């Protein structure tokens, strides 16, 4: 199947949960929603990150580069999660499938 829905809930050392629900199409992220009980300011910046992740393969180097670029470019401040947690949460979708 070329398109599949993937999901993961990931809790990092900060204690907050990152919940990833994404669609992978031909090996690339076609749509992703990042939800959870973390803090991020400005709050309106999250859709930018979701948009940046589109058309990216679920591989650590690419994901890490994009997430780091997002935090550098927007000067967004996260609390309860780190850029690393977001990368690990997305990678975790390849290890588990929840509903």
């Amino acid at each position, binding site marked *: 199947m070329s398109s599949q829905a993937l999901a993961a*809930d*990931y*809790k990092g050392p*900060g*204690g*907050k*949960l990152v*919940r990833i*629900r994404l669609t992978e199409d031909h090996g690339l992220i076609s749509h992703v*929603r*990042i*939800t*959870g*009980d*973390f*803090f*991020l*300011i*400005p*709050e*309106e910046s*999250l*859709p930018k990150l979701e948009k940046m992740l589109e058309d990216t393969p679920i591989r650590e180097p690419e994901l890490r580069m994009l997430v780091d670029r997002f935090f550098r470019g927007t000067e967004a*401040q996260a*609390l*309860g999660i780190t850029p690393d947690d977001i990368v690990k949460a997305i990678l975790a979708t390849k290890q588990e499938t929840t509903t």
Partner: protein
Amino acid sequence: MTETWRVVDLEYPDDPFMNLAVEEAIPRAVGEGAAPPTVRFWHNSNTIVLGCFQSAQLEVNFDTCKEIGTEVVRRFTGGGAVYHDAGNLNYAISLPKGNPLVPTSDLQQVFRKLSEGSVQGLRRLGVNAEFLPINDISVGGLKVSGAAGSVKWGTVFHHGCILVASDLAVLGKVLNVPKAKLADKHVASVQKRVTTVRNELHRSVSTIEVRDSIIQGIQASYKVRLENGNLTGREMSLAKELYQSKYSRDEWNIEGRNEPVEVRTIASH
């Protein structure tokens, strides 16, 4: 000179959507210079309040909500879902950005500093409360209050809910708690991780009594004077507009999050 802050007790216990509209209107007005530094106290009845980044579909048990008439509303700040009932006291602090009390935009420092008044207020009542990073106030390891906040619109904003005499059984039924969230807590339910002021004091206690004690705690902690006041015309206009365009809508409360809501510039003052 001692700084004077306004205390506002405006609330709509049976209209959580208007409650959350007022919750956003105040910090917007404070940042505009159209309102003084403000502490608001308020209640909701039977409502889930979601953090702005949460998925309603994943977090809310809609069947139970429908059964017992629980409303679902989303706030503009991050953090986790909370269940509000009449035994739950909400407070919100809005200070203009740059106020010497909180000269930082570091959210962790904001939570720490602006929880102090509530911690002191609870201690005055005899509750052995302490701030627990990231955003909780705890008693003997059990959560008695959670907070959220932001720095935006030229305002440092912090709000929290204090479990005074809340029905903890309902709390565990209306929210789905993800397994990953409980994984390292060694307990099986939300109910076992939280406590109430009533449980800690082993006596009946009203939210009014807690409010009054927090006012004392805020005045002592921050060396400010609190004075009762009302919303300005600008704040009421903003609240009504936010109610119409955002907080009364499923697009925001259930489906949406993050989408910036444009607030039209309406004739102010």
